[in-house]
């Protein structure tokens, strides 16, 4: 059984990295093999909290996709983007900064891919009006979506997975990660000011073209927009309070999605058809494959190796946190961060058992959220999300931006993306490392 589960895991990982076969096909086939070989029983796969599918993650993702699918029909994102370009008075650098901010904020509360999918066309249009090269803008938006997505529980799938596994609330992320992301974002924008501030200039007549664009025409359904914004507001409020009322984030998201579906007047068939089912089934397949390697003890072996390297102590896991941050960042630049975090989550849970001398499966929230352990979870989240900027294939948003740009006639080569992405990844992870070290190990501010 050990070698069967290990082989399925390794081959699936290799195929996902190679991108020779669609990752959803790989995950689903790997999951089917895990079940057919009885590495994992179907009951375990569907019902076990430790080994099976994390339904909290699945329903949170589906619900947020439903909310976003309805909201995108209102044209609000395009409205905000054109409005921002006009607020910037057509100044190219100001537009770059404002677009980075709206991408980051959009990605923090919605989905990274949807945010860039909606902003890239507007960016291309504005760049065309200003007669400037859109590539630096587009890469900036991809990077901003990954940085912004790190700030909240719902911003990026790795955060959703970490929150579910470690029992962390939306406010935990706001309290611990949002400040880090604000600092990182400010430093990044300063670096961008040095890099682009004096380079981006256009003629006055071209700025007038941007100022003549009509943002109000973008709103296609103002009644639906009002409903969507009210329900999104309540859903975010629900996320903020879910820990207090002892609800899972998925319950809050499901309530928001169901209410919006009910009042929107949209047909459920069309809205549900737009849910990214391949992503959902990718998650389901991955959870089952990872459940297999947890059950046969591979994760336990990996955990022993990690303990040997980082020597964590019950009250001090500084080295583990630092290693986790950089290891996650580098791996996430190469591998999709979703399978990476899916593997690291059970590994950290196993390490907690070993560090605190617990019997398998007996760790409670007290151990999982131990003061010494928390910086490790935040390091994993920061590393996995920020690491996505390290390559054009490091995050789904990067792949989408590169694809849309090429389709519009602006090819972003692999190395061209690296020229922007790698320095930003190194700078942001380095800042995250300083944040973790200063906040948790110098100031002891948990």
């Amino acid at each position, binding site marked *: 059984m050990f070698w069967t589960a290990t082989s399925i895991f390794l081959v699936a990982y290799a195929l996902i990295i190679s991108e020779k076969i669609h990752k959803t096909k790989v995950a689903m086939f790997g999951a089917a093999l895990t079940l057919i070989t009885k590495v994992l029983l179907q009951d375990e796969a569907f019902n076990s909290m430790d080994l099976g599918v994390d339904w909290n993650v699945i329903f949170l993702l589906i619900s947020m996709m439903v909310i976003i699918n309805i909201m995108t029909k209102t*044209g609000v994102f*395009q409205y905000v983007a*054109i409005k921002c370009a006009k607020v910037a008075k057509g100044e190219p650098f100001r537009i770059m900064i404002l677009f980075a901010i709206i991408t980051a904020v959009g990605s923090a509360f919605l989905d990274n891919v949807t945010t860039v999918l909606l902003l*890239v*066309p*507007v960016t*291309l*249009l504005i760049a*065309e009006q200003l007669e400037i090269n859109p590539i630096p803008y587009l890469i900036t938006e991809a990077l901003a979506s990954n940085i912004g997505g790190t700030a909240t529980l719902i911003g990026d799938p790795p955060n959703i997975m970490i929150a579910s596994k470690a029992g962390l609330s939306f406010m935990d992320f706001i309290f611990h990660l949002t400040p880090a992301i604000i600092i990182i974002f400010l430093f990044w924008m300063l670096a961008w000011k040095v890099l682009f501030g004096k380079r981006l200039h256009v003629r006055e007549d071209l700025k007038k073209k941007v100022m*003549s*664009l*009509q*943002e109000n*025409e*973008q709103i*296609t359904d103002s009644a639906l927009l009002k409903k969507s914004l009210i329900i999104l507001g309540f859903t975010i409020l629900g996320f903020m309070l879910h820990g207090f009322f002892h609800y899972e984030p998925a319950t809050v998201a499901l309530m928001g999605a169901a209410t919006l579906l009910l009042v929107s007047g949209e047909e459920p068939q069309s809205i549900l058809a737009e849910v990214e089912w391949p992503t959902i089934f990718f998650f389901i397949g991955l959870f089952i494959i990872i459940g297999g390697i947890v059950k046969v003890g591979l994760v336990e072996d990996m955990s022993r190796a990690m303990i040997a390297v980082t020597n964590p102590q019950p009250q001090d896991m500084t080295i583990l946190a630092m290693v986790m941050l950089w290891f996650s960042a580098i791996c996430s630049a190469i591998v999709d961060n979703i399978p990476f975090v899916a593997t690291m989550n059970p590994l950290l849970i196993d390490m907690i058992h070993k560090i605190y001398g617990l019997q398998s499966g007996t760790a409670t929230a007290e151990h999982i959220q131990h003061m010494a352990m928390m910086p490790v979870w935040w390091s994993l989240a920061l590393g996995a999300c920020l690491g996505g900027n390290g390559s054009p294939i490091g995050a789904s948003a990067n792949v989408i931006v590169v694809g*849309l740009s090429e*389709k*519009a*006639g602006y090819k972003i080569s692999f190395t061209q993306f690296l020229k922007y992405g790698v320095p930003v990844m190194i700078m942001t992870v380095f800042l995250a490392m300083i944040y973790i070290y200063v906040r948790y190990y110098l100031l002891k501010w948990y």
Partner: protein
Amino acid sequence: MDVSECMRTKLVLAKPDCDYKRLLCKIADSVPRLAYVVDDNYKLLGIVSAVDLLKVILPSYMSVGLARSFSDGTEFLQKQVERVKDKRAEDIMVKKFSFLHPHHQLLKADAMIAEKGFNTLPVIDEKGKLLGEITRLDILVNLVNNCSDYNVDDAGLVDLSLL
């Protein structure tokens, strides 16, 4: 009845290096508004329709929503037309296309056209050489003339500008 019995054989052809303006002139003069891009041996390489010519003018990112943000899009469109003037037929043509062989039954052509919503299908031989085309109207006229008691005549056009 075979496709070969009712296909049209007078077609608009273009070479892969045919430029945008020439393509537009060719298509403007033809019904249906299609040009078949062929090599020197008349092997069919692709098809260019009026829709393809229009699509290539619009940038890939342009949507109905974004188009609404212009109070007057004339200048934008002129710029786009200028941009595409160097495009060749091989850049614009649809390379993946459905086709029929001359021995196929008219019923198959009818089903393909109805199922996929095509207006016209090229007819090629086994080696890919273009032989003709068949349109919705050709099929309809043939079916009605052969399978019913009445003939389809020219219904005549009404020039609304004279009303």
